[in-house]
């Protein structure tokens, strides 16, 4: 045996070797078993992760779908329940006074629950903790918890509960309640519930924003649609993108006919060039000048007819794209009314003309009357000789000339005939001062002129310009008379402004100025600070009308140092 089968020692060694192998294998087998278990755990964990990721994805999708909040909240709640294994719960929002839960929906999980759903759900108990801490909280032994005292009768049985907050701007505005999970909740559940709470909060915020957007859009739409004014927007290519009903009525194009068309369909040809320039300029400078100012021009209807309109423009930008919105009002009626007022005021100004002539005639008439009576006296007292008679006649004739001149100058002034042409400001001012010389001297008003440039010419009807100037001067003179001030002075200046081809003429007095409370109204027709005994106060209104309507200039007034300053701004030629 020894020889055939080797030595005993060898056998023993072999056996021991085998034993070792077996032990090794056993160890290996043990390790293998162990790693299999580990692997199984990994698989479970992986599945859990998968489930979590899937639920989270579903939740995100729900948020992105931007549904009504109640629908979204229910979905998010369901995903959360099925992920965590909770079988009951609800979603509630904090009432506007912050004292109660307002339940959106409640899931009793098949358990009987007889609590009246209209009962208030005050913020107390475990949910109060969640509201206060902005954290998910749970209790796996709810029946034994201190919160049971708050449970209303007939409430579905609760083994365990969890609350997760809905947080907007770091404030809990609602809550998701979860309950009755087999085996109870754990920390991971709380973490997940917080995430779903966050989803619900985002969905809530989105739905609120959307509601706001919808209502403001609705509001804009109804404002735009019910407006009598035309509201029209164009894009940077000048194509119409918004066309309200008012625009439809005003221009005769329907919404379908207008949208997408160039805005030039409503612009008369003569404005096309200036429209093109100002539109391009507006886009390049990103401002429409004059923004907010009302421009008066004409619009063109679908049938080619034109009508006057008032227009205001605004330029706006959305995501780098520029748009221009214009609001237009048909000013046909207003123009007619203006014309009527102007005609009335012309009639009244005829009345003023008579008063003025009467004023200028009184002294000469009186003087002539005295001369005639003295001729009679000369005869009575036997002193009527050639010398006396000649003196009386020539004095009377001089006075008659004065009467006739007065009529001439006034009728020139009030004459509505004549054509607009270029004239010198300086000579026009001079003529006015000549006409008013007697009047101004009579009222002890010193008039000084400061013209930096006597060659300034402007365009218009000179007679009308003079009328405006005289009305302004008369206003100052009347003010002097009313206050009885001494040292009366009026300074008339004229100058060019910048290189815009404009000229100013300012008329300033030292009469103490105008009460700031009424300074805005002094150009109104029929506004007067004078008593009943004097004119109807149309002078300044007429002046403004002439300068602004007839001559396209501007007449403004402000208080200066010692009095009031009227400023006429017109295009110089």
């Amino acid at each position, binding site marked *: 045996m020894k020889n055939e089968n080797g030595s005993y020692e060898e056998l023993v060694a072999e056996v021991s070797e085998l034993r070792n192998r077996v032990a090794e294998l056993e160890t290996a087998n043990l390790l293998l078993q162990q790693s299999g278990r580990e692997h199984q755990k990994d698989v479970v964990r992986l599945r859990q992760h998968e489930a979590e990721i899937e639920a989270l994805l579903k939740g995100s999708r729900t948020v992105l779908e931007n549904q009504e909040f109640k629908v979204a909240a229910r979905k998010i709640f369901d995903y959360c329940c099925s992920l965590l294994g909770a079988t009951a719960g609800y979603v509630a929002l904090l009432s506007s006074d912050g004292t109660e839960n307002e339940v959106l929906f409640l899931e009793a999980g098949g358990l009987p629950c007889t609590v009246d759903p209209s009962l208030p759900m005050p913020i107390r108990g475990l949910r109060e903790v969640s509201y206060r801490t902005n954290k998910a909280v749970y209790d796996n032994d709810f029946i034994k918890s201190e919160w049971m005292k708050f449970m209303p009768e007939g409430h579905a049985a609760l083994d365990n509960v969890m609350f997760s907050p809905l947080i907007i701007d770091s404030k809990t505005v609602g809550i998701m309640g979860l309950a009755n999970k087999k085996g109870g909740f754990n920390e991971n559940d709380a973490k997940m519930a917080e995430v779903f709470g966050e989803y619900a909060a985002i969905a809530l915020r989105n739905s609120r924003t959307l509601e706001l957007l919808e209502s403001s859009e609705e509001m804009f739409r109804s404002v735009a649609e019910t407006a009598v004014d035309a509201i029209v927007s164009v894009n940077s290519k000048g194509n119409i993108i918004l066309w309200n009903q008012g625009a439809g009525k005003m221009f005769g194009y329907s919404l379908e006919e207008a949208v997408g068309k160039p805005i030039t369909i409503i612009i008369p040809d003569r404005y096309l060039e200036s429209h093109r320039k100002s539109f391009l300029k507006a886009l390049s400078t990103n401002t429409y000048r004059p923004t907010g100012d009302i421009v008066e021009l004409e619009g063109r209807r679908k049938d080619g007819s034109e009508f006057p309109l008032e227009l205001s423009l605004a330029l706006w930008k959305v995501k780098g794209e520029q748009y221009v919105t214009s609001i237009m009002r048909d000013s046909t009626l207003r123009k007619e009314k203006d014309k009527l007022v102007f005609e009335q005021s012309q009639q009244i100004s005829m009345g003023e003309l008579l008063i003025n002539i009467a004023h200028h005639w009184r*002294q000469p008439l009186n003087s002539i009357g005295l001369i005639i*009576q003295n001729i009679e006296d000369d005869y009575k007292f036997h002193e009527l000789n050639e010398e006396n008679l000649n003196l009386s006649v020539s004095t009377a004739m001089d006075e008659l000339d004065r009467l006739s001149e007065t009529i001439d100058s006034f009728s020139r002034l009030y004459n509505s005939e004549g054509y607009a042409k270029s004239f010198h400001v300086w000579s026009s001012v001079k003529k006015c001062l000549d006409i008013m010389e007697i009047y101004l001297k009579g009222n*002890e008003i010193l008039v000084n002129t400061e013209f930096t440039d006597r060659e300034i010419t402007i365009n218009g009807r000179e007679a009308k310009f003079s009328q405006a100037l005289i009305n302004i001067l008369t206003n100052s003179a009347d003010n002097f008379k009313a206050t009885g001030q001494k040292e009366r002075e009026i300074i008339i200046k004229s100058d060019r402004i910048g290189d815009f081809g404009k000229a100013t003429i300012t008329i300033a007095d030292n009469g103490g100025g105008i009460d700031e409370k009424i300074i805005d109204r002094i150009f109104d027709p029929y506004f007067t600070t004078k008593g009943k005994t004097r004119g109807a106060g149309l002078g300044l209104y007429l002046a403004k009308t002439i300068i602004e309507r007839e001559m396209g200039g501007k007449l403004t007034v402000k208080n200066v140092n010692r009095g009031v300053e009227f400023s006429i701004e017109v295009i110089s030629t």
Partner: protein
Amino acid sequence: MDNIEILKQLSVLYVEDDTLIRKGVVRLLRRRCNEIFEAENGKVGLEMYMNYNPDIVITDIEMPVMNGLEMLERIFEHNETQAVIIVTAYNDEEYKHKKSCRVLIKPIINKELTDAIVSCYKGSR
């Protein structure tokens, strides 16, 4: 005593800024009254009044330096019953003075003026 006789005894102050009218009226009155003083504004008029104490004051209202109403105020301070005739172009309340005896609206008529002088003189005595 008829009006002509009464006029012949009276001294009159006439205040008016328009030279032609003033000269015309003065010429008219000089032939009928005892003494005529003329002034071209209220200030001069007041000085003359103080110096000559005339029976009748005839004045315009709108005048430079010192207007008629202001002058009259000062005259009435001095003599509350002074006979005053206002001659004005305007038939407005603001050209009247409650203590004046008569307000005549221009143009001035010879007879109207002399009648007014006499009646105011009689009333002031």
